[in-house]
């Protein structure tokens, strides 16, 4: 075994590879409820070339490699399920290029959400990217790889829809480029070349993304969020439909949670607006809160809770402290917007059955084309019983998603099995062939999307 270690030291340098108990302990944990899986090596490369050498070594020695970004997928997707190398990519954190005219950014795979948001605010104030609600440590590429969504999901869709190009190291060590960057020096579009979209949603089982080009969008000087609340969950789909019809809104989220108690059973809508002038803002406000939502207010079905300027950075980590337990995990799904009422009701039942304060959230994707719906289960890391409760609730929720005819977003191994059981057999078989083609020795993040 030591020969692999010595080779790794040669590739990345002694300080960036460890087989010591402390590193193996920390890199065996996901932040959610997934059981720990211990790597044999923790490795932190700095360049694409180092990753190539690591993957060639892994192929020679049949050592599994699990790529790791921020490690915040909360579904164990970056855990070394079969041991081997936990490949921490966060040292590759250079923002390579921002192109104002074509509105795109090229980043290394370790660039974090917080870092990019800050960079754009300081250097390109008229541009923004679709920042997910995950903690700022989450990486751009990692979020891309799981079909993540951010605060521009409505109106512009999944973050993975915003890919302009990828640089990927294949499991066998070659570097490939997809999109315009494969033929030109410009990373401005993913199309029109033959689409070889084999690296998003695969949970890192088909290669390691080392560079990403991503679309950026106009960032207006005034940003803020309006709050609207309704009692009846059945109204949510139609309200979303009407709001999205105005095409005036950035990011539209409906959520409901048991804490604080007064809000339990209520459904809040966070409506992000942005404008470059007070006039534009006033016009949008009137269009949304008077013309579109006015009659809900007058009929007593809904309430307007005001509009506050400036977007507060997402503090989702606070959820991890609800039970003073330093932990939560959620099932994400991609559902039709009209299933919101069932998702809420059935989800609330599961939470209450397991004694967990319910938290559900629906983020609109595109023009109400779909929504990411999540059920969050907090637990107390020091109390295994609550972790078991949360784990059971998560699995039951995975089942619920399929029962409601939806699709699980970034499923862990349990959810993957459910999805594969229902997936079209030919599609499943194609997935198998693709993986065998790209990863003959089965070293790329094994344990994920294992087609039996």
């Amino acid at each position, binding site marked *: 075994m030591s020969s692999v270690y010595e080779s790794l030291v040669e590739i990345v340098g002694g300080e960036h590879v460890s087989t*010591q108990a402390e590193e193996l302990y920390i890199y065996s944990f996901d932040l959610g409820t997934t059981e720990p899986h211990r790597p044999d090596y*923790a490795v932190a490369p700095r360049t694409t070339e180092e990753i190539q050498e690591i993957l060639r070594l892994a192929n020679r020695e049949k050592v599994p490699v699990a790529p790791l970004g921020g490690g915040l997928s909360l579904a164990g997707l970056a855990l070394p399920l079969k041991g081997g190398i936990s490949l921490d990519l966060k040292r590759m*954190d250079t923002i390579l290029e921002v192109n104002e005219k074509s509105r795109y950014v090229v980043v290394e795979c370790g660039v974090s959400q917080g870092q990019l948001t800050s*960079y754009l605010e300081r250097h390109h104030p008229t541009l923004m990217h679709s920042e997910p609600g995950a*903690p700022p440590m989450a990486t751009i590429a990692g979020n891309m790889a799981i079909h993540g969504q951010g605060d521009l999901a409505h109106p512009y869709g999944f973050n993975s829809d915003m890919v302009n190009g990828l640089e990927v190291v294949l499991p066998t060590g070659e570097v490939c480029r997809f999109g315009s960057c494969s033929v030109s020096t410009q990373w401005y579009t993913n199309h029109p070349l033959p689409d070889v979209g084999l690296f998003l949603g695969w949970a890192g089982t088909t290669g390691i993304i080392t560079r990403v080009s991503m679309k950026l969008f106009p960032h207006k000087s005034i940003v803020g969020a309006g709050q609207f609340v309704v009692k009846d969950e059945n109204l949510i789909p139609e309200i979303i439909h009407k709001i999205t019809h105005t095409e005036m809104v950035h990011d539209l989220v409906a959520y409901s949670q048991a804490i604080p108690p007064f809000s339990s059973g209520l459904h809040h809508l966070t409506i992000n607006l942005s404008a470059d002038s007070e006039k534009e803002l006033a016009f949008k406000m009137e269009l949304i809160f008077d013309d579109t939502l006015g009659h809900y207010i007058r009929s007593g079905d809904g309430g307007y809770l005001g509009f506050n300027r400036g977007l507060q950075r997402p*503090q989702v*980590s606070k959820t991890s402290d609800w039970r003073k337990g330093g*932990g939560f995990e959620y099932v994400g799904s991609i559902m039709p917007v009209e299933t919101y009422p069932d998702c809420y009701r059935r989800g609330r039942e599961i939470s209450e059955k397991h004694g967990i304060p319910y938290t559900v959230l629906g983020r609109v994707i595109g023009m109400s084309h779909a929504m990411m719906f999540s059920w969050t289960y907090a637990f*107390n890391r020091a109390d295994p019983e609550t972790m078991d409760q949360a784990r059971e609730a998560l699995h039951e929720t995975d089942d619920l998603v399929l029962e409601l005819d939806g699709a699980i977003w970034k499923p862990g191994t349990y959810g993957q099995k459910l999805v594969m059981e229902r997936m079209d057999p030919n599609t499943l078989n194609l997935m198998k062939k693709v993986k065998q083609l790209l990863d003959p020795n089965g070293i790329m993040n094994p344990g994920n999307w294992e087609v039996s």
Partner: protein
Amino acid sequence: MTLAEYKYADTIHRCFRCGYCKFPVNWMDVNNCPAYARFRMETYSCGGRLWLTKAWLSNEIDWSEHLAQILYSCTACKNCEEKCPLRFNVDIFNMIQAARAEMVERGLVPAAVKEFLENVQRHGNPYGNAREGRGEWSQETGIEQYQGQDYLYYVGCVGSYDTRAQQTARTLGKVLLRSGVSFGVLGSEENCDGNEVNALGEETLFEMLAEENVRKFKDLGVTNIVTLSPHSYNAFKNDYAKYDGSFPVLHYTQLLRDLITDGKLDVSGGMNARVTYHDPCFLGRWNGEYDAPRQVLSAIPGIELVEMEKNRESTLCCGGGGGNFYTDFLGGSENSPARIRVREAATTGASVLAVACPNCMTMLEDAVKAEGLEDKLVVKDVSEIVGEVCGIG
């Protein structure tokens, strides 16, 4: 001791390891936890360190040299407490310190920490230098021994023994003399203030140092203290009260600011220089004093004060806190925090990097040399800048 007896048993597991603690306030990079910036492995991040502490205390992992080094690589800079969105953030360093106290009691500390603490036990300073030599820095400066003057000018170990920091101690003494301040020093009678000893977890040794110092100060009739180092300032201000030693204490930049506003210190001579100021953690994040040093610098005509992007609550620690100026667990790389910091200082176009702490002075000056920036950037203590303006050599 088992996890149950650990003072923060009900808090240590609440860390979600979400990584906020690695960022400065403006989120620009993940280098603001100095140990993580140096090693870029999750074990060295604040979250990693808390998880490892819990794992060790609940016997999931054994003690090892590597674990001790990880625990002691934290420089007590409190960036994590500034950034963590969770309610237990006020206790983060306390949790690390309590784990260190457990390692101290079991005798299982890194060799460099053992040396540091033994030298303080025997010689009253971490360098192991003889006590008689502690007052030599003040020879031929006209600074007097303390006998009841208005202020006790407390210098601290680094200022007393480190050759570069001694110059700062001398200059400040002369500036105070020039301003007509009535003060005296303890010279070879001065003992370690214990701030780093406390941070390293040797609680009983800190208690002894504090009690001895309080008794000595009271015997000498000390009324006010002014410190050269924010580390001493922190100990006297926050930790000596429980040993019945609540003396009014000022960091010297606070005194200089008052002297200037009261007209007792004339800085009108001015100095033409573009200066950037580095907030020391024990003055800024620990004690909320961000303005006094800046007010002193801004009072000097001709000084153009430019801010680094990481300033005030977002300052990037020089890597010298928590005993690291001696144990140097974060040294030896271009990612050593001090070297990252001087590179940032250079990008402001400033020719002078102003500091207000002897630890920062030694760490950042070495970093300027290591980065080959001597011709572009010089490290000066705020007192030295004031000294130059007043024509004090």
